[in-house]
């Protein structure tokens, strides 16, 4: 018995969805759908236009427009169905009609499934953005992302905060120009690229230069603005380069917050222009505010006006950053927004000079002994003698590793915060390789020892060579054992150690 067109349509959709969920390709889905239609034809159904009422045995494909078939409509559009059908040879009569219906359907889908595309794009963008502020030592970071209210205007704004070796913190904010899924996808690619470049230890101008190169390889149709900066907790300097983005706002206590005066640079994707790194001294208590134009520019407000308002809002900031972010969003962000908007607020804790020590040593065998003695004395002064044994051993390994590779003096640096950070800088560009020494080997064990005994370790390139670093936890003043722990005696009579070490 023939059943109604609507039932046939239901069966058709069920079959189609099953095929889709089975992982069929667009072409196979298309072919399968045609087969279903032909099967219906053999059963006595015809497919025809609604405007051409028939005898009742009609598969009204427009039934697909019912809400419960939304997903199918999307699938059909996605498979570029009509286009496939039109290429089938010998289409005529009912089959041709079917093809026309499907073309119409695709049109309807484009118009009516915008909501779903919006869901998809937002989901994509959410996936590509950090979901919560990262916990970074020595920094408070709060951020907000506000999607556009325009359903077709999913944006390409992004931001990032990451810890870099050497007690440094990288901040990124960027904005892929244009809207839509493609912008969001490009944003995800650029964000990944910046992360990778940041962890290669490149300075800001080089990160943007490489990002520009990368962006032009990825797409020749998208431009982006981007601000990349590194805050160094030791020097308390924010080194930042700009690719056509809104400069950072510095809210220094006791001063009116203002845009930092840094070179602007061309947007990412333009190519051929270098970037400049500016160095901003960040006094304690300063809040750094980064944003995208969507926050300050609206249909009724110029960028400059919005930035003035933002500066006024963050001047004399006292509230915690999370609340400050909410306040700024509440005051500035208009509803509806035509563009997406990002806001990042960061404040940092610098490291006092007396919690940092550095020495320049010759890359010769006796330097390992010198380094051990210097580290021992300094840790005794810091009442962190309980870390001395491990720190000395590992620093000695790293300094010894530079012999025969480095040609210029090697810098050993200790930074004491909650952790003890030990770094060895040299001018050899060859990165360390972790070897697997055989049982009797007398060398090649250094980094294995570092990896085994340090809480964290790593290496990165620097402008002049590389740095190998490790960290030991439990260095905060109250972690010490008061009298310098079991190594306390060393702190009181350091010269006594010299003879013991000088022969090494």
């Amino acid at each position, binding site marked *: 018995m023939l059943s109604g067109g609507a039932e046939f349509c239901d069966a058709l959709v069920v079959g189609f969805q099953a095929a889709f969920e089975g992982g069929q390709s667009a072409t196979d889905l298309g072919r399968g759908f045609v087969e279903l239609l032909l099967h219906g034809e053999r059963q006595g159904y015809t497919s025809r236009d609604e405007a051409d009422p028939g005898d009742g045995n009609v598969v009204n494909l427009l039934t697909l427009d019912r809400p419960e078939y939304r997903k199918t409509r999307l699938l059909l559009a996605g498979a570029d169905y009509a286009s496939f059908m039109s290429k089938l040879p010998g289409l005529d009569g009912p089959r041709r009609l079917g093809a026309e219906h499907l073309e119409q359907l695709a049109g309807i889908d484009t118009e009516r499934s915008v909501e779903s595309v919006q869901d998809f794009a937002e989901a994509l963008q959410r996936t590509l953005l950090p979901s919560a502020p990262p916990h970074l030592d020595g920094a408070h970071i709060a951020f907000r992302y506000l999607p556009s209210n325009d359903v077709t205007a999913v944006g390409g704004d992004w931001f990032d905060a990451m810890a870099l070796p050497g007690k440094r913190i990288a901040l990124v904010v960027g904005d892929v120009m244009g809207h839509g899924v493609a912008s969001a996808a490009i944003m995800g690619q650029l964000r990944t690229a910046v992360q990778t470049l940041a962890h290669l230890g490149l300075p800001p101008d080089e990160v943007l230069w490489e990002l520009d190169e990368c962006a032009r390889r990825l797409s020749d149709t998208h431009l982006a603005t981007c601000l990349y900066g590194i805050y160094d907790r030791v020097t308390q300097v924010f080194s930042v380069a700009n690719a056509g983005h809104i400069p950072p706002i510095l809210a220094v206590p006791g001063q009116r917050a203002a845009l930092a005066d840094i070179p602007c640079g061309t947007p990412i994707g333009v190519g051929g222009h270098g970037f400049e790194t500016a160095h901003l001294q960040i006094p304690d208590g300063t809040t750094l505010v980064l944003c995208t134009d969507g926050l300050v520019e609206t249909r009724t407000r110029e960028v400059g006006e919005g930035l003035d308002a933002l500066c006024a809002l963050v001047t004399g900031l006292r509230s915690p950053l999370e609340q400050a972010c909410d306040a700024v969003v509440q005051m500035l962000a208009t509803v509806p927004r035509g563009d997406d908007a990002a806001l990042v607020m960061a404040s940092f804790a610098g490291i006092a000079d007396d919690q940092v*020590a*550095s*020495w*320049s040593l010759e890359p010769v065998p006796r330097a390992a002994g010198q380094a051990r003695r210097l580290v021992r004395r300094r840790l005794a002064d810091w009442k962190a003698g309980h870390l001395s044994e491990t720190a000395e051993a590992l620093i000695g390994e790293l300094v010894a590793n530079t012999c025969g590779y480095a040609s*210029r*003096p090697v810098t050993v640096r200790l930074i004491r915060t909650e952790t003890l950070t030990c770094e060895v800088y040299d001018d050899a560009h060859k990165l360390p390789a972790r070897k697997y020494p055989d049982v009797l080997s007398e060398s090649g064990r250094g980094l294995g020892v570092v990896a085994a005994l340090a809480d964290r370790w790593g290496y990165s390139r620097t402008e002049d060579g590389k740095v190998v670093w490790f960290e030991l936890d439990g260095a905060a003043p109250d972690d010490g054992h008061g009298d310098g722990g079991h190594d306390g005696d060393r702190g009181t009579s350091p*010269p006594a150690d*010299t003879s013991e070490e000088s022969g090494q």
Partner: protein
Amino acid sequence: MTEEWVPAEVDVNRPSIARIYDYHLGGTHNFPADREAAAQVVASMPELPAVLRVNRDFLGRCVQYLADQGIRYFLDLGSGIPTNGNVHEIAQAVDPSARVVYVDNDPTAVIHARKLLAGNDRVAVLNADLREPKAILDDPEVKRLLLLDLDEPIAILMSAVLHFVPDDTEAEALVAAYRDAMPPGSFLAISHGADTSEDAERIDTAVQTYTRAVAPLKLRTKQQVGAFLTGLEIVEPGVVHCSEWRQAAPEGQQLPQICGVGRKPVGSQ
């Protein structure tokens, strides 16, 4: 000369000790105000340029001697604008790994020194006043390069600078602070404008001219300079005229610049 190199913080209208010294030694890092002051001083003391050259020569022989003694860490207090035959050139000729920290309170001297020394990993220039020994000895850059915590011997050079500390008590106290901080085996080298009895009136006029035109100047006797080396083993030939130190002295009257080098005994604090 062009004066494009002048940094903003330098007042070219006030004479500077370092730039006058540079002028007398034939350098080009000086301005009309310096040359005018130099001319006034030279008018009252025609031998001054020769004195400064003798002083420079002493410094060269002294650094060579110290490097030959195995010293690899040098702290040059009141270094001025680096001219030919710098401390680091002589020391690094003996051992390329020798380290030198130059200290001067004159921004011109510091900026020029930094420019000249850019790229030399073993040399640093510190803008500080030698009258603040603690600040200098605790400076991270000094500690980084001279590895003071290692207690290896260093050399502290005070070449033609202590006579700009007119107060005797202050001069003695600050030299003592450096002496005390030096690890055993370290050397202290001093050269100083000499208060000789000959021609006292003329010298006095010259000192007054210098004080008025440039900076307060206090000449000291051999005995006073020797007292700066208290507690140290004085290196032969002792406290002498600069031209007599470890070379055959030239004929005739010695120029009024004296010097002495002392070594901190090993086994002392």
